[in-house]
């Protein structure tokens, strides 16, 4: 059974990041959202494995939740 790889896995991380930013260059928020959605679907299909995808969803959800807790718009609950 494969698991979500959360260790560094890209030969040139900086290069990928730059390309991701470049892809969004000059796009409006709406256009960027549309691009992201397509990217997610394309990558998800490439991964395929339901278990890995679930772990990825969970990792992303947890990270987003944490972020919301620390710097969420409504601020932290007292």
């Amino acid at each position, binding site marked *: 059974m494969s698991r979500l790889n959360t260790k560094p896995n890209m030969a040139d991380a900086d290069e990928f990041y730059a390309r991701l930013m470049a892809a969004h260059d000059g796009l409006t928020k709406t256009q960027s*959202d*549309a691009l992201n*959605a*397509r990217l*997610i*679907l*394309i990558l998800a*299909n490439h991964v395929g494995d339901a278990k890995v995808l679930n772990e990825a969803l969970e990792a992303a959800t947890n990270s987003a939740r944490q972020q919301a807790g620390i710097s969420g718009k409504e601020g932290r609950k007292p």
Partner: protein
Amino acid sequence: MTRIFETPLYPYQRSPDQDAPKCVRHPVVVVGAGPIGLAMAIDLAQQDVPVVVLDDNDKVSFGSRAICFAKRPLEILDRLGCGETMVKKGVTWNVGKVFTDTRETYSFDLLPEGGHKNPAFINLQQYYLEEYLVRRVRELEADGKPIEIRGRNKVAALSDNGGFVRLEVETPEGPYNLEADWLVACDGANSSARRMLGHDFVGKVFEDNFLIADVVMDADFPTERWFWFDPPFNRGQSALLHKQPDNVWRIDFQLGWDIDREEELKPENIDRRLRAMLGDDVEYELEWSSIYTFQCRRMEKFRHGRVLFAGDAAHQVSPFGARGANSGLQDTDNLFWKLKLVLDGTAPETLLDTYSAERTYGADENIVNSTRSTEFITPKSEISRLFRDAVLDLAVDHEFARPLVNSGRLSVPCTYDGSPLNGPDTDALPHGLRPGAPATDAPLDGGWLLDRLGNRFQLLLIGCEGPDSLEESGVDVEVLHLDPAKNPEIGSRYLGGAPKAVYLLRPDQHVAARWVDHDEAAVRAAVRRAIAKG
């Protein structure tokens, strides 16, 4: 022209029960003569269980409702004596196409496997189904079977007295009372039985409206299901076109949530929509139109004491998977034999709880599928619309995205995995025919296997020695010896790679248990289990 839905099919007639000095008790009363109530009554009468059907109307259902009937319900209707008429009149189809704007994004071919009596799908107006069912009721009556439909008999009050159900019925000649050992409520999505007994019906309403029009026209569209997302003639919404017999076409327009219903239903506005879609020079006649809002919901349990709920009364789905009537027919298929065994005293009443367990499981499957389709068609948030549009866009060039396009996941038969009635299984036999699954058709001795199955418990001995008959706990089990050498599809479908097999089938043609060899004690135990005695 008098249309079928304008003709009284079971006009009111005074029943002797209305003049009886003492309230008459019937073994089974069915409320509602929609497709599900009629199927229920036919199935019971075929088993010689006396049944009375009460309906507040006297005609088939009005206008545009079910049109797509799937293979499994056709097999059930075959057992009821109506399947062949349906298929003969219906339009058989296999291909579905999905368009986004003007481009084709996705298509599917149901590609039915050969060697089955029934096609994957037919389209037929619901009023024909109801008409054929009523005709079948008349046939059974003529054969002296204990079945009766009472038109314009409205159930006005109901109470479950523990040992029986008491009904108050309104007729054009005033009210009368009836009693029933068992009541089957098939009185539709707005079930008054459900309301009168105070049961809930929870689920969700989809915030959208659909204009459904049945149009008579000479058109040369192919016999395919065509679905559009965001077409030029209905911007930002969806549309569907599907063929029915008699040159009738089903057309659906998604309208959105905030609409002026009355305005939309004005003939000139419907005409404007149809013209935009079909062109200005097409001649058509509008047979029926209505605006629907769809919901997905079900009762928590389908059995409450002596009242059993079936069809839309028990569960309701949006129509994109053609799962409404199709699943209601699977309800009555599940219920008829259980009710018969309980009435005969052969099985304990707890067998009826398994009706609820198995069919709520089936309803959940339908609700999940219909909800997913509806959410794809009517995205509920900005982000779900974003992903939906991304899928539709990607699907044009990328094969991977096409299975994500969801314009309706069409009704498939339910396998009762995990049912308390299921007996032993073995890995050596094909997975698709595991306990809980409906038997698969196959050619048999010049006819069809399924034509030989159902209505009683049966033991299939496939390439296997065994007895010629069997009786267990009051249940007569018919034994069928099948020769896989003479019937190769039975070999491939029922044996897989195994040399022989034994299948115990329930009266609804579902597999109860199976083995790779005959073992009488094991079969007996499985029969007891399948009638809730084990």
